[in-house]
């Protein structure tokens, strides 16, 4: 009934406001030279690593994989465009590490496969937008995003839990990932 639609409206409005505040905030700070996404050149090995851990579907190892075009995939969620600064913001990363420790380590170890993938080097295999959308919108991602769908299969059908991080918190976690 109307109650529900009002709700959806309010919450999406809230999200939009939050999102725009976040982007404005970042845009304002982003006077420094920025680093573009890495070229896809060094990707192959990373995917190989992922495949060795996969449940061994033949299709994945045979040439064309959903992982191949990762650099064009920004995922599905509130984060549309994100440019990372060249320098890692250590203060931001430290806050991200704390959040990661509290809310993510039940399933992710920094540098080895656990319930979910290791975040180490994730920006060499995923776009920053994708990473943030995966954190912020996991339900939709595992249903609709081709990479997230494949990862679900590769990780024993353990879908990523939504830990309800704010966009700001997810951004901090992403910065922490860059230090790994």
């Amino acid at each position, binding site marked *: *009934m109307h109650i529900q639609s009002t709700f959806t409206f309010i919450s999406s409005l809230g999200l939009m406001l939050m999102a725009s505040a976040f982007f404005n905030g970042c845009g304002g700070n982003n006077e420094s030279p920025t680093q573009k996404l890495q070229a896809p050149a060094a990707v192959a090995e990373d995917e190989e690593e992922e495949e060795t851990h996969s449940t061994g579907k033949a299709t994945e190892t045979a040439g064309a994989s959903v992982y191949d075009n990762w650099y064009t995939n920004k995922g599905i969620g509130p984060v549309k465009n994100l440019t990372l600064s060249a320098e890692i913001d250590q203060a931001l990363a430290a806050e991200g590490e704390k959040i990661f420790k*509290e809310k993510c380590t039940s399933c992710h170890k920094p540098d080895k496969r656990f319930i979910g993938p290791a975040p180490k080097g994730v920006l060499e295999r995923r776009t920053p937008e994708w990473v943030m959308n995966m954190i912020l919108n996991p339900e939709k991602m595992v249903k609709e995003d081709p990479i997230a769908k494949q990862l679900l299969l590769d990780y024993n059908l*353990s879908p990523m839990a939504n830990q309800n991080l704010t966009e700001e918190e997810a951004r901090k976690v992403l910065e922490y990932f860059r230090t790994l």
Partner: protein
Amino acid sequence: MYKKMLPLLLALPLLFFITSCSEYTGSKGGPQAISGVADAASKVYVPPGKYDEFYLFTSGGFNGQMGVYGLPSGRLFRVIPVFSVDAEKGYGFSEETKSLLMTSYGFMPWDDAHHPELSQTDGITDGRWIFINGNNTPRIARIDLSTFETVETIEIPNSAGNHGSPFTTQNTEYVIASTRFSVPIPQADISTKDFATRYKGTITMLKVDPNTGEMSIHFQILCPGFDYDKAHCGKGPSHGWAFFTSYNTEQAGTLKEIEASQNDKDYIAAVNWKKAAEYIDAGKGEEMTVTYYHNIMDEATQTATSRVIKSVKVLDPLKYEGIIYYLPTPKSPHGVDVDPSGEYIVGNGKLSTDLTVHSTTRMLKAIENKAYEKVIDGIPVLKYDEIVAGVVKQPGLGPLHTEFDEKGNAYTSFFISSEIVKWKLGTWEILDRIPTYYSIGHLCVPGGDSRKPWGKYVIALNKITKDRYLPTGPELTQSAQLIDISGEKMQLLLDFPTVGEPHYAQAIPADKVMPRTKKFYKLEENKHPHAIKSEDEAKVVRDGKIVHVYMASIRSHFTPDNIEGIRVGDEVYFHVTNMEQDWDVPHGFAIMGAQNAELLIMPGQTRTLKWIPQNTGVYPFYCTDFCSALHQEMQGYVVVSPQGSNKPLKWWTGSDNAL
């Protein structure tokens, strides 16, 4: 919008049902009794994924709980444990919740819960809290409507049956309580033959903190030894007053069925609580030694703690004038209900053939003019003719309760004649009547006891359901009925079964509650002394025979999920923190041979299960709340060694992840 389409969709199957089934259902009040079945169905049909318009909170009666239903669908959403232990949620079993059931009689795992009462702001229900009484071991509880959890219970001293309770004043300044049974105060072994001279009743005023909702007993008023039955607070012109019905003004101590039904008129006690509070604030009143428990759930530590309180301030109307007056009301009045304007006080004499309506204006005038019939134990009895506003003549048999709509109409339940009668305030004429199935007690209009009713429905809360449902042995389901009151004629829309006894209920538009809903407890705000904030804090600590397990749960594993070095007879406390930060992902925790219950742990919450292993062996534990595709894998083991074993404590999760 869907409503317009629906009659078309439903008409066909329902017609089929009526023609094919009516001959062998044998039901007196079956669907054939409803005129326009398809029309009724369309009014209660809430399509999949759509929300109901109202929350309905029903008391569980003898199950001591509160039911949460949606209206108009009648769907049951939740049972909130209040005064009774609930194994489903570990309520009263987990170390954190046990204290909520502590009383001066000890741990009290059950009660008889009767009257849910929503908090109000400016006389309008506000969706913050709902209060409910425990009759048997006199208590009042507060449920926080952001979490739908019981967060406070308080015992009422000097009470022996907390029935006329816990009705709120118009800004929830107070909730009120009266004792149904009079007893010697203080308690003593005095024969019921001395009932009239030695037994007393009490009325209790509990202050409510406007920010936290926390209750505290401000004072009590000592009253003659009658039975105090139901209550309601004034509003508008009667704000500052509270009204309590009494019966057994005969002061009989035995066979009350006959001996308490002798007088033509009993009384509604009108209490000027503002004036009484002034006395108390001026330091008046007698300090009395009592013992009662006040239990509060601290949301930060997520643990309830008990405080024992040893005294209460009591006002004796013999010594303090002007705090209480009796309004004579025929005959054994049960319900007392104040209309939305606050002017009319409806007294339903359950043995009277008429309804008596008193006027606040006339009452205040009679008090001013000292128009007293007599004085009982310092309490003036006002002259009946000076206070009556009107009488509804012969509306039915056995009137109990009245609720109101926003158009100046009143709806009264009749227990004996099993019906609801609609009548007009001011003219006292009867407008409509509708049968109920069967033996209605209370009734509920959303906001119907407040200044702002949403007069769309009246809900009948029935005592008997003979022949309305598939039989289930000698005991049948309890039931409620939803009746449309938006038009001139009342229309029965729906019967729906309820859990426990749906003694009374209150309803509120969903949009007053939903925006306050908490979706999970924030981990960073979890101040539970045994909480852990990340898996690497998981540990097992021995202190003599006591072992504390600090455990984390998240889809779909526990950390640790293997524990060794526990010994037979150890007192093991599993402190399980649910690390999820997502809506509707509780985890359970159960271990083989646990003699208390399982735990149900909300996201971000910590709950503790005490377990004493009795034999050596390996004890599996697992998650009881289906949480993910790998829920069956959410399990672990405790290896129990003999008493006196030297096996060191060890714990881990994952073969290469020893902690």
